């Protein structure tokens, strides 16, 4: 059931009506669970087995861990006097091993399922490049949203082990956390501590919340159907015939893909958060105006934020502060000097994070290279920071409006270049096409009508351009005023209603469907 299908819209409308009109407040979570399982069932009934096993594994090991840790604490408390500081430490260290074993089992099973379903054929494909007799691929299903829900359960298992959240004792409630349908398609990656309370005790129906959720859904559909699904037509032509479209066309690919990916992903997230909001559930934001970032680090703090913080909290930090890394840090500072030595462990951890980020995005080498290129750019900008500081001190550009605009443009172009890996889906081809921008001088071709041969007519370019200007103005409003335009509009109710109607009409009239168009799956759905 695609988010953009009529089926889904009817599903949501019926669910929302039943949810608010007939279900008591304390039983609403039950209906959400039924709806989530139904959503998954209609996608493919076999998916239910996978998500069920993942949820059950995390659920069982969480309870085992929590119960065991409680017993340890109780024992320590009851026998306080018989322990001195040294024996207390020893007891804690010995018993912590059992707790870690539970965590390890939960992670091995759940990450194992993810690895087996998503990466088996990638490994076979990689092995085949060295073999004369290729191994045959396995026919394996990849459950929808497996990367998202697996990461949610992994964070839950680790949080339980750290003692930062309490284990959920009701399996059905935990299954709802794992399978909450709006975010199954493309995230955000929610943490149990953030989502559970609002999921099990949603806000009662209230005009402001409901209206803001509704207009956000419309806004998401507008971005997805009017912009993203329109631009994808031109993009496909450009990317699928790279020999024909080199040089300046690659720059067009960069611009189109930056707009298309942004509208596709943020549009999907708007629909997700909007649906949750109309149901009284608060889901974490996943974007914060990423294209206004002044450097790549800031960009990654604003784009797909729940994924970024997940990798920071569950890979970067644990790895960086592990005893082995701390020893390495000490050694490298002693032998390589303080300045270089203290960077070694940070860079190793950062490398691991970006390698994992690349692999998480997809089972293909271009994703791995994309991740590592991000690592290289972040490290380079980190190393160049003192140089930038000197430059800023000398010329005093920092803080000037034109310089801020330059920084934003520079970051946008840099990130759009890296996204080419995702467009061409072939490492060698991506480098070749990127290089062609500097040696194939065909800018004139862009103005001889060739852009009208990509499957988009003049009307499409006008519609997409006007829609993008609207998206830009709405983003600019948030940047300047610090709040969403829809919140301002709600204070002027007639204007709010007018805008909602306009959005609906614009999406219905100008949405990219019908002959020549096909409302496509969300890009992040494949992850």
């Amino acid at each position: 059931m695609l988010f953009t299908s009529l089926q889904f819209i009817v599903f949501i409308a019926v669910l929302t009506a039943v949810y608010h009109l007939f279900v008591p407040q304390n039983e609403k979570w039950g209906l959400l669970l039924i709806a989530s399982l139904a959503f998954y069932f209609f996608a493919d009934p076999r998916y239910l087995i996978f998500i069920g096993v993942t949820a059950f594994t995390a659920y069982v090991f969480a309870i085992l861990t929590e119960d065991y840790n409680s017993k340890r604490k109780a024992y320590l408390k009851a026998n306080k006097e018989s322990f001195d500081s040294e024996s207390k430490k020893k007891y804690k260290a010995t018993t912590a091993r059992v707790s870690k074993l539970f965590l390890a089992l939960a992670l091995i099973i759940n990450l194992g399922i993810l690895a087996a379903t998503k990466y088996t054929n990638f490994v076979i494909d990689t092995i085949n490049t060295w073999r004369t007799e290729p191994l045959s691929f396995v026919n394996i299903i990849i459950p929808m949203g497996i990367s998202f829900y697996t990461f949610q359960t992994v964070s839950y298992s680790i949080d339980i082990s750290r003692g930062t959240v309490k284990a959920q004792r009701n399996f059905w409630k935990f299954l709802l956390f794992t399978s909450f349908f709006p975010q199954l398609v493309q995230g955000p990656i929610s943490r149990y501590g953030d989502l559970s309370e609002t999921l099990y005790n949603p806000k009662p129906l209230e005009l402001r919340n409901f209206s803001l959720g509704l207009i956000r859904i419309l806004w998401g559909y507008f971005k997805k159907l009017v912009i993203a699904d329109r631009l994808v037509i031109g993009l496909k032509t450009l990317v699928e015939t790279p020999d024909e479209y080199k040089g300046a066309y690659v720059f067009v690919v960069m611009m189109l893909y930056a707009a298309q990916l942004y509208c596709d992903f943020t549009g999907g997230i708007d629909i997700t958060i909007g649906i949750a909001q109309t149901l009284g559930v608060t889901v974490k934001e996943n974007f914060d105006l990423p294209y206004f970032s002044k450097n790549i680090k800031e960009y990654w703090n604003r784009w797909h934020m729940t994924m970024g913080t997940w990798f920071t909290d569950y890979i970067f930090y644990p790895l960086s502060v592990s005893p082995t890394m701390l020893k390495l840090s000490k050694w490298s500072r002693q032998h390589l000097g303080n300045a270089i030595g203290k960077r070694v462990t940070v860079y190793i951890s950062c490398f691991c994070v970006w390698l994992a980020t690349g692999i998480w995005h997809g089972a293909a080498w271009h994703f791995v290279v994309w991740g590592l290129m991000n690592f290289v750019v972040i490290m380079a900008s980190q190393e160049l920071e003192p140089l930038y500081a000197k430059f800023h001190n000398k010329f005093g550009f920092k803080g000037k409006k034109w310089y801020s605009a330059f920084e934003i443009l520079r970051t946008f172009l840099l990130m759009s270049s890296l996204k080419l890996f995702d467009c061409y889906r072939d490492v060698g081809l991506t480098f070749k096409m990127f290089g062609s921008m500097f040696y194939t001088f065909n800018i004139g071709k862009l103005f001889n009508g060739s852009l009208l041969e990509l499957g988009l007519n003049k009307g499409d370019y006008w519609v997409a351009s006007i829609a993008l200007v609207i998206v830009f103005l709405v983003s600019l409003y948030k940047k300047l005023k610090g709040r969403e335009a829809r919140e301002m509009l709600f204070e002027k109710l007639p204007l709010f209603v007018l805008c909602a109607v306009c959005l609906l009409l614009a999406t219905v009239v100008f949405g990219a469907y019908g002959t020549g168009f096909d409302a496509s799956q969300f890009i992040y759905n494949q992850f």
Partner: protein
Amino acid sequence: MDELIEILQDLHSDVDFETCTTLIDDKILDSFDIVSIVSEVNDRFDVAIPAKELIPENFNSAAALWALISRLEED
């Protein structure tokens, strides 16, 4: 506490760590800084800060970080 301030000043000499209470909220310290601090603290105070303690509340001010170090030393 003076030694801790010294560690922090090494990272950002332009910040008043004695008074600032929004080091994370205002994005003055990033994840790279935090890892450097943990490593320095481990060296100089012989205190290992575990990953679960790497949360904004513990790093928003020098005082909060000092309180964390003291708590871990007692443990």
